[in-house]
Structures are given as structure tokens and as C-alpha cells.
């Protein structure tokens, strides 16, 4: 579904030093990949580049994405075009947008995706029902819906909100950037449950994480280690356990 | 918590030096201007320049808009020129200076004699209206750095004074600038050549001694391309009952890639607790960041003077140039301060930072007045301003009057201000850990002013903390 070839990415502009120095990655339908690495290795950068964040410039390489059986070069697409084509980025630091209610935001985003797929938009009543189901899945109550987007949310609550959005928008490819950071054990289990329930044959998930513990609850098909802007090792879920006991130095030095 | 109302003002610089002085008759007219110029053996162009300034001054009105309560200044009662009597109008070396004068500076803790100097500080001392001479001449000469009194600089080739004087602060800029331009007697001049990083911190100490005189010094500092200099200015004056006027002008010019860091610790006599006496401090300080990537930084600790009126400013002309203003202003007893800064963004990518900390106690009034102006051509300009006030007691006032004028859509301007008090809980916590009142106040002040103190050269920052502690010790608790 997703092919990343020799990707070079630098922040702010082509003259700045590259964070990603030639990353290549293949993600097929039905797969769950974990992307792990020490701080500053470029994990978040990769996620943001796939989503099309304007602060990250691709200086070399390609990203191909399968849409309706055809391969398209993503780099020419705007971030919202990518989102409407089913790409979802769960942010590491979700922003607060005062004045925009959670509810309104979710419904509008959902309807944009519907429109793009040629489906009919949902009216507020039907959407409310739809939303309730997803809230139950994540064991969240709806009291936050009327409040402004992420305003006053704790770190953990913001992450849960990201997964709620993922549940509502049902993307085909989801990059979840450090979704586990800031969560206590109970919240982690709930979030993992939510992610697991969204796993399906027709979609794919890439979990960007520093620690292994999320992977106790979500078993990935592939684990990649990224260090200093390059993927240095790929393995299956047992690689994550090795990293847990040996640390990153072991892989990086090799 | 009750606040003690009695404050013992321990101004340790309040002594008077006994020395024979030569003074002009009081008052100001063209004749006095001419006499000043003649006494100093100035070239004709400068006399003309002064006279034009005098004409301008006569047509202007004293400013009344600041939130200050100023008794009127009787210019007829001030003598505009005072200097220690001596055979020569200029001193060629420290050895020629009257030992009594040198002793004065020693008492002030200021090193004038080569062998007693603080390592790494070249000092130009100004006693009343005259510069007494500068230390470290030879060392500076090696680098081609010119650091001398204004009087000497005027005659030097390549006529830098003539080229730059009044270009940063024009004569008609304001009332006190016009006055200063007419009657300035001396001050410091500094030129750092291309690519030179000045090896010593340069410093000027001002001391007003003679009674009923005004001090009108003029400083001009030019940093040529790629140069760097740290400049320190310190001030003191004796304890007197009448008010004395200090109207100085400082002009800074930074060319491409040059950096000037100008720090001031001002401890003029502030008047007694009833508000009698004290210095009127009206200063115009401005820097032009003319060249690309140039940088001018103003750091000040104001703890004295009965009335302070000064707005060190930066005109950010060169692309990507930077201006900053870090200030701690302390007012006590009946002091009044109206101080702040102006940052004018003209060129692209210019940046400015303003951190202003005001501490007011007793019945004083402490006002911040600032202007951040982004001209239409200043694409990508950025400003960050933080003004914090700490009030001690319930009889003082803190005012903030900022003006922000933006004419470019890509600019980013952020201004924040807050007021706080010294928390009773915080005081109790410190005391319950064994710190006495003085230490506690010191700690709180230090914490409040950290960001500004960090910008001062080390000796200065230690001096600043001690100065503030001393000023406040009877105001809290």
C-alpha cells in the first residue's frame, strides 16, 4: 500500500541538515509495523513527512501510495488530500484549538472523508449515534465533546482523543506517533484495545514508539529500528523484545 | 504582614570630594555655549553644531507627558561647566591627575591606576564634566581600538566624530537631547575596527561632584564590520539636598555583523525618604543596527536617581539585525521612574527582545513605557516582550504603558506583562529554612530578575544583586 524509497527529509529548508538520510520502507495491507529508535533518530519526522507537514521538506526520494488500485506519488499531494485518501497521522503533541468544539471538529472531518469517498454526509443525529459507539469502544465519556478541541486535556486524554479520531475516520493507513507516551497502564490498555479493534485486512498501521511496552498489547508484523536518519535493522516482533533487554546501542553499533 | 515605613537610606557614595573647581557662571545662553567650546579648544564645525542645537532647544518645551511629578528645573540656576582646576584642559596620563581625584574613585571602588585595576576592564573616568583619562591605552592601541574622551576624539582623524555625531540621536530629537547637544562637555568615544573582538571590557564611570551643576556627557560608540565590544557604564553622585540634572546622550552604531553589548548599573543619589534632593536623570540612548546581522543589546540596572526618564532604543535597519533590552528598575521611597525602550523594526528578519523587571517599594512609582513598531518593509520581524512588576507594600505604584504598532502581516509580536508580590508563603518558607530577611529578599529579587542579571558581565551582576538587596532591606517584613 505504501512504498517509501530513499527518502531524505530536512526541516525548514533544503539548506538545513537532513534528519532522514535515505529511508526506504514497504507497508502492505493488513500489516502492523513498529518503528522504533532512540530520541532524535527521525521517527517522528518520517510520520510527519508522510502526512505532508509543511515544515518538513523532502529533498530526495519518493513516497508511493496505492489509491483505487493505482500507485500515486504522494509528494505532490496536499495534507488534506492525503487525509481524504485515507492517511491518518496521530500526533505526538496534539494541538489545542480554542473556539472549535471537539464535536464539531469530528463531525466536519468525518463528513469531509465521506464526501471524498462519494458517500453521503451524516446528519448530526446519526453522527451522534456513530460517535457514541466509538466512545464506548475507548471507554471515554462524551462530556468533553462540547469543549474546545484538546483544550485543558491532559497528555493522556489528548492521545485518547487521537485514537478516537482514528476510530471515527477509519483511515486506510495510520501513522501513530508515540501514542503511548504519557499514558498510564490503564489508559495504555484501552488505547491498545482501540487500535487492535481497528486492525483489519484492508488497512495498515505504523506505530512509532520509543518503548516496547505498547507492543505487549499490539503485536506488530514487522519491527524496524531507525537511527540517525536511516533504518538500520528490520525484524519481527521478537526484535522488539531484544531491544527491550539490550537497548538501542546494540543495534546502532552494529 | 506589616511593612516598616522607615527606611534608612545607606547611600555609601554620598561623600563629597574637596577639590578646587573651576565653574562657569550659572545659566545658559549663546555666550556660555561659546565659552564651553572655547575652553575645550574645539574646531569651528563643532561650535556651529552646538549653537544650532541651542537654537533648537530654545524653541522646544520641556516634556510633560510622562507619568512623572517633576518640580520645574530652573536652568538659570545650573552651572553648565565644572571641572577640577588644573593647568591643562586635558590629561595625557593618569599620573597627571590630582591624587585627591584618584582617591575619590578609589573610594568608589573604581580602578583608575594601572596597577590596581580589575583584570580586563579599561576605564574612562568622568569627574563632573571632564574625563580624567583612560586606562589601558597601550593595549587597546595594539588592536587599533580607539577608546578615549570625546574631547580627544574630536581632533582625531579620520573624523569619525564628525561623521557620526547626531546621526543616531539628532539634536531636535527631544528637549534634553537638544540641551545636551548644546552644552555637552565630555564623555567617551569608542571605535572598534573591522573584525576586532575587543579584548577588554570597556567601561566609563560618571561621578557628579560639584553642587548645582548639571552633567551632560555625550558618548559615541562605533563598532565597525564584524567587531565585538562589551561596554559598561556606572554612575554615582554625592548626597545633596538640591536636585541635580543629568542629561546625557549615548549613540551606538553597529555595522555589518558587529555586536555591541552596553550595560549600565546606575546608582545615582535618589533623594532622601521625604523625596528631597536626588538626581534628575534624563538620558537619551539609542543604537542603530545599520548593518546586516548586527546586534545591539542594552542591559540596565537602575537603582538610583530621584527621577529617571530614559528609553534606550534600537533602530533595526540592517537585515536580520537584533536589538535587545534587559532592565531591572528599582524604585524606593519617593523615587519615580519612567523608563522603557523603543524597538523600531525597519529591515527584514529583524528581531527584538524586551525583558523589563520593575520593583517598587514604599511610595515610589515605577512605569514602563515601550514602543514596538514594525514598519511595512520589515518582513518576518519578530518581537518578544515581557514586563513584570513586583510591588512591595500598598503605597507604591507600577504602571505599564506599551504601544505596539504593526504594519506587516508576516510579523510575529508577543507581549506579556504581569504583576506579582513577594509572597508571604515564600518568605516564610525561606525563613523556616534558616534564612534571615535580608537573604530571603535577596533570593526573591534574584529569582525575579534572573533573566536580566544573566546578561550583565559577572562583576556587574554581583554588584547589582548587592545593590538591590541593600536598597530593599528595610522595605520588606
Amino acid at each position, binding site marked *: 500500500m505504501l512504498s517509501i524509497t530513499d527518502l531524505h527529509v530536512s526541516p525548514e529548508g533544503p539548506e538545513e541538515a537532513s534528519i532522514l538520510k535515505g529511508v526506504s520502507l514497504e507497508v502492505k495491507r493488513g500489516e502492523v509495523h513498529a518503528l522504533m529508535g532512540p530520541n532524535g533518530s527521525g521517527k517522528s519526522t518520517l510520520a510527519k513527512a508522510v502526512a505532508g507537514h509543511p515544515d518538513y521538506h523532502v529533498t530526495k526520494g519518493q513516497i508511493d501510495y496505492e489509491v483505487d488500485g493505482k500507485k500515486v506519488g504522494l509528494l505532490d499531494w496536499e495534507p488534506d488530500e492525503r487525509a481524504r485518501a485515507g492517511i491518518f497521522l496521530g*500526533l505526538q503533541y496534539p494541538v489545542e484549538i480554542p473556539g472549535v468544539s471537539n464535536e464539531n471538529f469530528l463531525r466536519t472531518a468525518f463528513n469531509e472523508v465521506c464526501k471524498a469517498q462519494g458517500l453521503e454526509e451524516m446528519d448530526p443525529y446519526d453522527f451522534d449515534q456513530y460517535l457514541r459507539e466509538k466512545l464506548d469502544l475507548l471507554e471515554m465519556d462524551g462530556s468533553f465533546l462540547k469543549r474546545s478541541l484538546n483544550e485543558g486535556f491532559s497528555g493522556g486524554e489528548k492521545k485518547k482523543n487521537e485514537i478516537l479520531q482514528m476510530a471515527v475516520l477509519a483511515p486506510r493507513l495510520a501513522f501513530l506517533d508515540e501514542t503511548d507516551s504519557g499514558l498510564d497502564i490503564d489508559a495504555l490498555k484501552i488505547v491498545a484495545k482501540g487500535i487492535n479493534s481497528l486492525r483489519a485486512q484492508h488497512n495498515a498501521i505504523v506505530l512509532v514508539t520509543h518503548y516496547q511496552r505498547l507492543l505487549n498489547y499490539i503485536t506488530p508484523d514487522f519491527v524496524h529500528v531507525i537511527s540517525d536518519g536511516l533504518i538500520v535493522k528490520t525484524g519481527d516482533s521478537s526484535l522488539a523484545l531484544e531491544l527491550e533487554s539490550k537497548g538501542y546501542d546494540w543495534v546502532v553499533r552494529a | 504582614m506589616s511593612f516598616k515605613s522607615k527606611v534608612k537610606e545607606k547611600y555609601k557614595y554620598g561623600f563629597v570630594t574637596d577639590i578646587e573647581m573651576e565653574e562657569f557662571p550659572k545659566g545658559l545662553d549663546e555666550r556660555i555655549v561659546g565659552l564651553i567650546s572655547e575652553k575645550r579648544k574645539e574646531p569651528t564645525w563643532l561650535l556651529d553644531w552646538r549653537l544650532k542645537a541651542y537654537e533648537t532647544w530654545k524653541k522646544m518645551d520641556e516634556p510633560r507627558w510622562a507619568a512623572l511629578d517633576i518640580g520645574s528645573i530652573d536652568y538659570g540656576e545650573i552651572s553648565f561647566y565644572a571641572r577640577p582646576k588644573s593647568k591643562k584642559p586635558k590629561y595625557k596620563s593618569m599620573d597627571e591627575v590630582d591624587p585627591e581625584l584618584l582617591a575619590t574613585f578609589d573610594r568608589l571602588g573604581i580602578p583608575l591606576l594601572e596597577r590596581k585595576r580589575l583584570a580586563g576592564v579599561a576605564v574612562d573616568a568622568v569627574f563632573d564634566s571632564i574625563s580624567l583619562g583612560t586606562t589601558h591605552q597601550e593595549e587597546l592601541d595594539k588592536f587599533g581600538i580607539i577608546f578615549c574622551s570625546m574631547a580627544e576624539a574630536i581632533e582625531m582623524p579620520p573624523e569619525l566624530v564628525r561623521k557620526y555625531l547626531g546621526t543616531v540621536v539628532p539634536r531636535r530629537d527631544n528637549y534634553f537631547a537638544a540641551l545636551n547637544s548644546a552644552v555637552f562637555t565630555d564623555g567617551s568615544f569608542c571605535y572598534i575596527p573591522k573584525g576586532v573582538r575587543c579584548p577588554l571590557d570597556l567601561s566609563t564611570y560618571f561621578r557628579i561632584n560639584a553642587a548645582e551643576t548639571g552633567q551632560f556627557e555625550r558618548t559615541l560608540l562605533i563598532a565597525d564590520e564584524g567587531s565585538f565590544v562589551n561596554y559598561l557604564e556606572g554612575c554615582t553622585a554625592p548626597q545633596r539636598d538640591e536636585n541635580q540634572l543629568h542629561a546625557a546622550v549615548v549613540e551606538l552604531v553597529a555595522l555589518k555583523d558587529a555586536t555591541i553589548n552596553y550595560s549600565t548599573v546606575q546608582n545615582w543619589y535618589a533623594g532622601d525618604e521625604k523625596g528631597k534632593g536626588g538626581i534628575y536623570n534624563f538620558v537619551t540612548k539609542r543604537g542603530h543596527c545599520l548593518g546586516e546581522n548586527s546586534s545591539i543589546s542594552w542591559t540596565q540596572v537602575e537603582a538610583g536617581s530621584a527621577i529617571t526618564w530614559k528609553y534606550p532604543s534600537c533602530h533595526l535597519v540592517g537585515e536580520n539585525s537584533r536589538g535587545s533590552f534587559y532592565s531591572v528598575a528599582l524604585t524606593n521611597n519617593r523615587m519615580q521612574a519612567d523608563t522603557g525602550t523603543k524597538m523600531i523594526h525597519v529591515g527584514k528578519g529583524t528581531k527584538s527582545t524586551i525583558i523589563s523587571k520593575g520593583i517598587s517599594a514604599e511610595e515610589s512609582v515605577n512605569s514602563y513605557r515601550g514602543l514596538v513598531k514594525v514598519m511595512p518593509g520589515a518582513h518576518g520581524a519578530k518581537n518578544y516582550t515581557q514586563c513584570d512588576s513586583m510591588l512591595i507594600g500598598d503605597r507604591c505604584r507600577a504602571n505599564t*504603558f506599551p504601544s505596539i504598532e504593526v504594519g506587516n502581516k508576516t510579523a510575529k509580536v508577543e507581549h506579556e506583562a504581569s*504583576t506579582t508580590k513577594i509572597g508571604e508563603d515564600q518568605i516564610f518558607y525561606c525563613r523556616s529554612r534558616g534564612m534571615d530577611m535580608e537573604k530571603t529578599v535577596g533570593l526573591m529579587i534574584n529569582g525575579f530578575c534572573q533573566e536580566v542579571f544573566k546578561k550583565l558581565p559577572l562583576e556587574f551582576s554581583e554588584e547589582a544583586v548587592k545593590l538591590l538587596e541593600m536598597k530593599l532591606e528595610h522595605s520588606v517584613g
Partner: protein
Amino acid sequence: MNDGDALEALLAPYKALGQTGPDSLHALRSLGAKGFADKGLPGRKDEAWKYTSLKGLTGSYAWKSEGERFPGTPPVDLLDQRIVFYNGHWDKTLSTLGPGYRFFPLKEERDFDPLTRQLQGEDCFTDLALTYCREAYRLEIEERGERPLGIYHFMDKNFEGTMAHPLLIVHAREKSKAHLFEFTSSTEDLGSALYNAHTLITLGQGAHLDHVRIFKSRKGLMPFSKVLAQIHKEARYGNAALALGGSFLRNDLRVELLGEGAHVSLGGLYVHDTNEDSSHVSLIDHKAPKTSSRQLYKGLLNHHSHAFFQGTIVVGKDQADIESSQLNNNILLSDTARVDSRPVLEIGHCDVKCTHGTTIGQMDGEQLFYLRSRGFDESKAKRFLARGFCEETLFPIENESLHRLSADYLERSILEKIGDGEEGP
């Protein structure tokens, strides 16, 4: 015309009319005229007027002492409880009030005495209003109402070349509650016209008043709106002023917090397009301990528009335990947009928590990206953010139906103005 001429011209109708009028207010008017002549029009040196351009003030305006019936169709749906002013005069026929309110004109000098004292020392435009005062209007709020009450100021082509100085006094009784939707609008371009409105508000102990003021006029009208509010013990006043169109607006608010527990929330918004301009000046004076205030003013400025914000917070020497915050956020959408902001603090007591801030910048890139990563296209994302940005200024309005009414109107106005988001040349 120069200032001196403008002054003469503004006083001309007053002089022409002499002492006529079936009332006892001659003394009041002459006091006003003298004050106006003494003070003169504000100049550039006047800090509070430096950024407000008065060049649209032509000086020569006619003045009508009587009102007429509003002949046209109101530009907005009228609420079922309302007071309507047409071209500056009360239109009895269109106004209707439910129980719990009393509304009546004041024409006798004895009714004006406390009013005069309150208005002394104000600026020249208040003196001008007194100069032309034939009557004032008093609204008594007696109970705790839940339904909003509309106050409409409509002007049409007949207002061209004239001036009006309506004076409204609102008195909210102890523990009363009301929600006002005030709407000032000229439905057509007017060559020049001056609308100098004053509202004096008193909130009795424990009273609660929500007050939305919307200004949406076409070219030529110069509306001045001054609100003087006195908030007593435990009373709460929420005022949201939205400047959504017009070449000029001077919005002046002075609030005095007079008793412990008094609180005021002020929201302000200016959304401007080509050649639009407004000035928002507020002063909150904490005259009693344990009082609080909160202000949020925001601006969205497009081509060739300008706005001025000045917010002053004053805390007197004997006022302890004060909390006050003020924020002014501005987004400039065009190279030809300009904004001037002066957040002012005058604090005389140490036991206060006061903060203020101003920001000027662009739409938040991170917020924009967040919405786009959820499928919003660029212009939709910008409109969404613009709406969220603007709606926050309605925070002082606690009454849900008034809030909704205002938010809906706001949304429609923004869509008109910000439309496709992307700026032109």
C-alpha cells in the same frame, strides 16, 4: 475642514435652535456646549486618540429633534422583546417589552441630576451628546429574565448628513438578570453621518447582565459608542462587542467595580476588510477589593484595514485581592493591514494578580496542519480556525440562547468577509 471649523459646525445646530424645547434641560445643554467648546476635538497628541482617524468627521451635520417611524425592513429578524431606535430616536411603534421591564423617556431636569454627575469629566463627545440632549431613555430591569431583549439602532438613507446622540440608561435592580442583544447598523452607504450613542449601566447588588453589541454598518456612518458601567457588590457584567463592518467605529467602555465580588468580562472582536477601521478602548477600574475582570479582544484584519485596541486596568491603592487578565490577539491577513495595540496597567497595590498580553501574528501553522491532516482543505481549515478564533470573544455571554443567536450572526458575517481565506494583492 480644520479643527476650529469642525467645532463650530458641530455646535451650529445647537446655537441655531437656541433655548427652544418643551423641557427644563437648557442648563444641561449649555454645560455640554461649553465643555465641548473648551475641550475641542482630540488631536494626535492625545494618547487615547492617536490611532483613531477622525478625518471622516466633516463637522457639518444637521440635527433633528424629533423621530419618525422606521419605514423599511429590519436587516435582522427582530426579537420578540425589543427597543428600536430609528435614526437616533426611539421608535415607539416597533418597540415592545414583556413583563419585568420598564422603559420610559426622561425629560425633566431632576431625572438628569445623577446622570450629569456621572458624565462630567468625560471627553468632548460626551459633552457633545449633552449639548443635544432633549431626552434620555431609561430601561429598568426588575426581574430575572431568561429571554434576550433586543436593542436596535437602525439608520437608513434619511440619516445622511445628520447626527444623533441617543442616551440610554440601564438600571438592573438587585438580583435581576437580563440578556441584551444590541445591534447598530446602517443599511445603506451614507455620505457622512454621526451616531454618538451613550449607554449608562448600573448593576445593583447581585445583578447579572449579558450584553452583546454588534456593529455592522456601511460606508460613511461614524458610530461612537460609549458604555459607562458601574457594577456593585456581587454583580456580574458580561459585554461582547463585535465590529463586523463599517469604515469607522469608536467603541469606548469604562467599567467601575464598586463592591466586593463584582466581576466584569469583556469580549471584543473586529473583523475588517478593505478600508474598514475600528478603535476599541476600555478601562476597568477596580475600586473595591476582591473584584475581578477578564478581557479578550481579537482581530482579523484583511486588506487595507486597521484597528486600534487599548485596554487599561487600574487598581487603586486600597484594593487588595484583585484578579485581572487581559489579552489581545490579532491576525493580519494582508500586507496592507495594520494594527496598534496598547495594553496598559496602572497598579497601586501589591496584592493583585494582573496579567495582560498582546499577540500579533498569523494563523497558527500547527493548528492549520492539524485540520488539514484530518481532511479539511486549506480554505475550509482557515474558515474553521477563523470561526473558532472569533467565537471565543463571546465568552462573557452566559445565556445560551443569546450566545447562540450571536454566534450564528457572527458565523454568517465571517463567511462573507473571510470567504475563501486566501488574500489577494
